C-alpha cells in the first residue's frame, strides 16, 4: 500500500515536472561525471525556455 502511494506520488511528480531537477542530476552523474551540474535555478530557467520555444500547447 505504502509502495503504491509512493509510486503514484512519483508519477505525479514526474508528469508535473516537479522532480525534473533530481532526474537531471541522476542523468548528469551518469553521463557527465566530473563536470559541475547546473544549479536548480539555472536548470529551471533552461527547462522553461526550452519548453516554450516550440509548439507545446494546442487548441
Amino acid at each position, binding site marked *: 500500500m505504502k509502495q503504491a502511494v509512493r509510486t503514484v506520488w512519483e*508519477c505525479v511528480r*514526474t508528469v508535473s515536472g516537479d522532480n525534473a531537477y533530481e532526474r*537531471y542530476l541522476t*542523468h548528469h552523474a551518469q553521463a557527465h561525471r566530473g563536470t559541475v551540474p547546473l544549479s536548480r535555478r539555472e536548470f529551471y530557467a533552461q527547462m522553461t*525556455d526550452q519548453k516554450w520555444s516550440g*509548439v*507545446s500547447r494546442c*487548441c
Partner: protein
Amino acid sequence: MGNKILGVVLAIIAAFAVGGIALNRDEPINALWIVTAAVCIYLLGYRFYAAWITAKVLSADATRATPAERLNNGRDFVPTHRWVVFGHHFAAIAGPGPLVGPTLAAQFGYLPGTLWILVGSVIGGCVQDMIVLFLSTRRDGRSLGQMARDELGPLGGVAALIGTLMIMVILIAVLGLVVVNAMKGSPWATSTVALTIPIAILVGLYLRRIRPGRVLEGSIIGVTLLVLSVWAGGLIDHSETLRGWFNHPGPPLALAVIVYGWSAAILPVWLLLAPRDYLSTFLKLGVVAMLAIAIVIMHPVLKMPAITQFVDGTGPIFSGKVFPFVFITIACGAISGFHALVSSGTTPKLITNETDVRLVGYGSMALESFVGIMAMIAATLLDPGVYFAINTGAGVVGAAAADAVRTISGWGFPVSVEQMQALATEVGESTLFARTGGAPSLAVGMASIFGTSFGRGLMSVWYHFAIMFEAVFILTTVDAGTRVGRFMVQDLIGQVWKPMAKTSWYPSILISSTLIVAAWGYFLYIGVIDPNGGINILWPLFGISNQMLASIALSVATGILIKKGNFKHALVTFVPLAWLAIVTTTAAIQKIFSADPKLGFFAGANDLAAKLASGALPPERAAVAPQLIFNQHLDGWLTVFFTVVLWIVLVDMLRIAARRMRGQHVPTGSEAPYTVSQLNPANGDVNGVASGARA
C-alpha cells in the same frame, strides 16, 4: 483469447448503447447511453485498430532504440515512462477546441456531432496523432514542416510552414473572441479572469525566485488562489463601485485581450506563460475528471432532439447544411491538424519504446474526443430554447428579449423572457441572451451538471468557475500561440533579413510580436463588432484551416506509408485524408460561391454593401459596415488560400505516390537507421526513467 472475449463483450455493449440511441429517436435519451457507447468504441478502437496499425502498418519495433535513448541529454530527450508521456501529451493537445466546437454543432441536434466525434476520432484523429508521433519518433523528433520537406519536397515544407502560421492567427482570434464574449457585460467574469493574471505572475515569481522548480507547490498555491478568485469576483460583482470597473462592452475587452497577448509575448516565459500553463493544466485535468464523475452521478436526459430542422442549412448559430459543416465545426474532438504539431514536437523526444505510441498518440486523442462528447452532453441537456437564446447573435433574432424569445419559440423551441431572466439571476449574470461563442452556454450546462451533482445552491459560483476555467485555458493558448507565431515570423523574416532571426534580440522580439498580435487582433476586433456575434464567421474559418493542417499531416503520413511499399496499408491515412479533402473543399466552395449572404463570404459582403448603399441599415450598423464588408472579402480570399494549400500538398503527395508505384526515384526521407535498444522493454527496466514512475 482474453483479448477476443473482451472485444466481443465491448462490441456487444457498444451495439446495445448505439442501438439504444438509435431506437429511442422520438423520446428523450439519457446521456449515459452516449457515454457508454463512446467508452466502448474508444476501447475497441484502441484494443484492435490501433494495435493492428502499430504492429502491421507501422511495424513498431520494441527492440529499436528511440531518439530519447540514443540522444538522451537529460533535458528534452529523455526516455520517460509511457503513462507520464501520456499525461504530458494529453495536457498538450487538450485545449478549448473540443469544448467549443461540439457546443456550436449542437444546433443540428445531438446525433450528427456525436457520431462524427466518435467515428472521426477512432479512424481519423487518433490515427493521425499516433502515426505522426511514430513517424517523428523514427526521425529524431523532426517537426511536421521538416518531415513535409524531407518526404514530399520543398513545396510541401513551405505549405506546412505558412499554413501553420495562418491557422495560428485564426485560432487565437477565435479563442480571444470566445473569452471576450464570455466577459462582455459581466463584472464577475471579467474580474475573475483579470485576477488570474496577477495569480499567474505570483506563481511565476515563486517558481523562479523563491522555490525554483517546485512545480507542485507553486501549482497548489496557484489553483487555490484561482478558486478564491471566483469567490472574489462574486464580491466585486456585489459591490456597486467595484463592479463599474469591470463592466465593459466587447470592444474595450477585445483591446485588453490584445494588449495582454502582446505583453505575454514579449515578457519572459517564466513570468506569465509557464506558470499560467501549470495552473491551466491542473484545472483542466481536475475539471475533466469532475465532469465525467458528475455526468455519471447526474445521468441527465438530453432535451435537444437528435436532429433539428437546422440540418437544412438555416441554422442560427452558424449557416450551412449538416454536410459538410458539422465536420468543419467539430475539428478538435474528432480530428485536429494542430495535434500533428505537438505529436512532432516535444512528445517524440520522450518516447522510450516505439510501441508506446499507441497509448500516447491514440490514447490521448481518444480521451480528448471524450472531452468533446462531454461538451456535447453539456450543451444538449439544456432546454433547446435556452440553448438557442444564449448562442444566437442579436443580429439574427433581434436585440430585444421579447423579439428573440418569439423567434426562437417560433422555431419550435419554446422559451420565455422570465425563464431566461430566472436562469441569468441564478447564475449571477444580468442577461444570458446572445452570449455567443459557446463558453457561456457550456458554463450554464456545466453549472447545472455540477449543481445537480454537488449542490445546486452554488449555481452562480459553478457558472463563474466554469467561465474562469475556460478563460484560463484559452488565455494559455493565446499566450503560447502568440509566442510560437512570434518565432515563426522571426524565422520567416530572418530568411530575408538576418538580424530578425536572432530570437532573443529585443527589436526583433518587438517587431515580430507586434506583427503577429496585430494579425490576430484584427480578426478578434472585427468579430467583436459584428452584430451577428462574429463566431459564425470565424469558427468555420478556423475549422477549415485546422482541417487543412490535418490534411497536410495525413498527406505526409500517406506519402511515407506508400514509400514503404504496402499500398493497402496506406489506406489507414488515405481514407481520412480523402474524407477531409472532400469535406473541406465542399465547405470552402460553399463559403466562397454560395449566393446566400448568410453562408457565402462574398455574397455576405455584397448584400451588406447593397444595404449600406440603399440606406437600409440603422446608423450603428452602418458605421461598422465598411469594416465588415472588407473583412468578409478577406475571409473569402483566406478560404481560397487554405483550399489551394490543401490541394498543393495533396497533389504533391499523389505525385510522389505515382512515382513510387512506377518505380521512379522518390525523396529518400530522413528515417534514422536502426540501432538496437539497450533498454530492456520486457522488464521495464529503463535507465533514466525515475524508478518510482514504473507504474
